[in-house]
């Protein structure tokens, strides 16, 4: 998978549980490198989850979220085989998006 986004979405009939793990440095801008220079801030600012054309969850993040960030949430509805769309944008304007099937 070329995407930075990994998703595990499982439907229990009534609700769908979603876990996302994203490959991203999430540099806060407060850490120095081996040379003593600040590693510039580089982190995902917004992460959105869409199901059936509607937003089901939005994460607004700062540099205080761990590297390779993780989030888990659940929403009512969602069926096996349906698709979930996940997108993020970071403070440098980079983006990534992927779709995942609900298991």
């Amino acid at each position, binding site marked *: *998978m070329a995407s930075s986004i*990994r998703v*595990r979405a499982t439907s229990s009939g009534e609700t769908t549980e979603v*876990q*996302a*793990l994203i*490959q991203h440095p999430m540099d806060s801008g407060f850490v120095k490198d081996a040379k003593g220079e600040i590693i510039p801030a580089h982190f995902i600012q917004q992460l959105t989850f869409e199901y059936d054309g509607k937003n089901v969850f939005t994460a607004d993040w700062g540099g205080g979220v761990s*590297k*390779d960030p*993780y989030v*888990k949430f659940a929403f009512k509805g969602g069926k096996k085989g349906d698709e979930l769309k996940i997108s993020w944008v970071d403070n440098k304007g980079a983006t990534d998006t992927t779709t995942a099937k609900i298991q």
Partner: protein
Amino acid sequence: MRPRSAIYLASAALALAALTLAGSLPSDAADKIDPVADAKAFRKFFTDKFPKVKLEDFVNGPYSMNEDLYRQWQEKEQFPPYEFSLEMGKEMFSKPFKNGKTYADCFPNGGIGVRQNYPYFDEKEGKVITLELALNRCREANGEAPYSYVRDEMAALTAYMAFTSRGKPMDIKIPNDSRALAAYENGKEYFYTRRGQLNFSCATCHVQSPGERIRAEILAPALGILNAMPIYRSEWSGMGTTSRRFTTCNSQIRGVPFSPQDDEYRNVEYYLSYVSNGLPISGPGARP
């Protein structure tokens, strides 16, 4: 007896004793080296010390020693931080070398589900071969440059191979060969020998004080300690190999580390893995 004769007699006795000890030939030693008894005693020591810990849980190191740490670990294992390294390892493992061959060509069963057999004693070469060493030899045999033993690539490759063996019991063999027994014994000696400015042996922390703290860290028990390798350490914010752990540990006790895959390290890996036979492979693992 007159003092001078006594002295002569004493020195003669001492000389004889010295000669006998020096003359302790491998054939004598072979009678005394008993890995089976060692493994049994090793296991019993830890299960007696921690009666509430299930045998298979010893492989989880500090997580089996502390409830608060255990819960944090369990939460992260739902979708572990090492996911990306593992994926990278799988890709690397399947990618052919420039000459068209793959890692699968170097290993039994194509390298899948074999991690629990490493390290093994190579009777042709007369030395212990570890998984990391075997991987680099595979690379070199196929015209590729070897990987550093302490960096990401080797960690990712061993992570993937460990993953394919998850759940399988550690299964290290010591052939009936005096050199194999000597290597095993050498590893055991290394494990119990004090070194570095802090004058710690591996046993000082991992046999004497598992579950206790060294500064802010909880110590892992030596039983099953390599079953989780390679490990994603929160401290490293990344995956690290057995070689990395051995060398950094030596530095931490203010000793001069050996080079990765030096005989001492290969032998201690052999010893530690053998005495943990029967416990499941849990790698790639996570650690604080």
